[in-house]
């Protein structure tokens, strides 16, 4: 009699303890509301986010645009094709921003114009320009416009741009010998 009662009691305690699972699952299942109805398992991805840049689709993360780097003079214009590749495992949105560093300060880069378009290179050598719609621009004696957000780029897909560097007519004579480093940064962000 005692034994059956204690066995029953033990079963009852175990049954009550097992309810703890529901508490724990309650803690976890609220995850679903965080992830917009998708199960949390589906939400967890061992994603990597990376972009490649180059003259053709590829995975390199830095690229030196093959324009003539020396002997720039007013009126000179050079253009090259840029290909951004999503080397991530997931589709990513990305932004394009520009910056320049001048030596001496506020010199050549400030005087230059830079244009990123969705078109193609036209013309050759020191008189090449970009066709197509403007995406990002830097005017002479001005900073780059704000970073431009591009839509989502599917994994493995790539976008082709044309970038045009120009030293406009009327650039100051005092810029002779100045140097600048002009950088276009393509940043993909996922998760914020």
């Amino acid at each position, binding site marked *: 009699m005692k034994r059956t009662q204690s066995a029953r009691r033990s079963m009852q305690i175990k049954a009550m303890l097992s309810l703890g699972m529901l508490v724990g699952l309650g803690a976890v299942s609220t995850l679903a509301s965080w992830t917009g109805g998708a199960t949390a398992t589906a939400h967890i*991805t061992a994603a990597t986010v990376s972009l490649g840049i180059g003259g053709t689709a590829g995975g390199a993360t830095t690229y030196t645009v093959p324009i003539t780097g020396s002997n720039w003079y007013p009126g000179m214009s050079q253009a090259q094709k840029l290909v951004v590749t999503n080397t991530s495992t997931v589709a990513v949105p990305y932004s394009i921003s520009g910056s320049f560093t001048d030596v001496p300060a506020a010199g050549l880069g400030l005087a230059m114009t830079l244009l990123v378009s969705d078109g193609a290179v036209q013309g050759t050598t020191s008189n090449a320009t970009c066709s197509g719609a403007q995406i990002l621009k830097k005017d002479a004696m001005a900073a780059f416009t704000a970073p431009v957000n591009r839509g989502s780029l599917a994994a493995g897909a790539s976008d082709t741009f044309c970038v045009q560097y120009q030293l406009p007519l009327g650039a100051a004579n005092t810029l002779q010998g100045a140097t600048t480093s002009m950088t276009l940064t393509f940043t993909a962000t996922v998760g914020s």
Partner: protein
Amino acid sequence: MRHVNRHARIGRAKASTALGDRLTRWAFNGGAILGSVCLVFVALTLIFGLKPLIFTSGSMSPGIPTGSLALAVPMPAADTVPGQVVSVVNTQGSRITHRVVTAADGALVLKGDANALADLEPYTVDSVDKVLFSVPGLGFVISWFSQPWVAFLAGLLCALLIVKAFILRDSEDRGRDGSQDGPGRHRHRKEQRARQWLGTGALVTAIALAVPLGVAGTIHPTQAAFEGKAVASATLAAAVMPAPSGLGCQDPASGNKSVTVNWVAPSNVPVAVDHYKITVTVGGKTSVGTVPASATSQILSLTDAQGLLGGLLALLGNLLDFLLTGPKSVGVSVVAVYSGGWESTAISNSSLAEISSYALVSTRILCN
């Protein structure tokens, strides 16, 4: 009683029943263990204010890979120091767990270990959750358990265990029901009913407690905002426009009323020379003229009033009076002006030629 019971049990010991008993024991023990673990976990999070975090991306890898479960404790944002791993909620409402780069003026700059650059958005928060430790893989397990069918199975198991423990009459109940009469049986029935009510009450109470407790102990998925970056750069250098060279002066074959200034066109030009700019200086007065790129010389004539030198001399008044104090140097400088407007430095000679009076009535110019 015990004796009888044992015999009865042995009598019932058929294989299928034994298996059923074993399964039942397993279900009770397993349920109790899992439930206890969950209870302890939720209790700890509630008592110490711990926040469990599941990493849904890997920007803190390799230290904290995707699918890790971390425990974090709240702390004031002002107390953070660079190097700590903290969890914040960004303006879009996503939870981000990254390492502190700088913490100045209440704005936290965070960066994922696997990211090349810091998060774009500095976080202005009062409180952060500092990650105490993390366990790789446990997040996957826990999030797997959040699937609806798992919850359904767990609920079903709990319900079965409750029913078995509280509500079902077991064989002894039946045995006693059959063998006992009168007050004993009646008492037992009462006990049984009380037990069933207790079970139902326990079940309702437990569920009523479980749901809010579970919500309070919510595990937060945290993303580690992932960033990838690619850079296209170009280094540009402006040309230094080369100057003409070899500035010289040549007397004419006959006469002494003019000289020819000549120079050598610059070499290695980045762009074609558009024209030359020649500046003549006499007695502090200057005159500037242009010479087309095709020519690399300029005649300076005393007699051509429209010319470069003639025009300049007109500014000086009576030339003979001007020369009374002695011969005067003629300075010349030449600059190459390029397409696009940039000029080279000047090539110059402050006394390339000399103007002097000649027999008191005439003037002449001779190269030096």
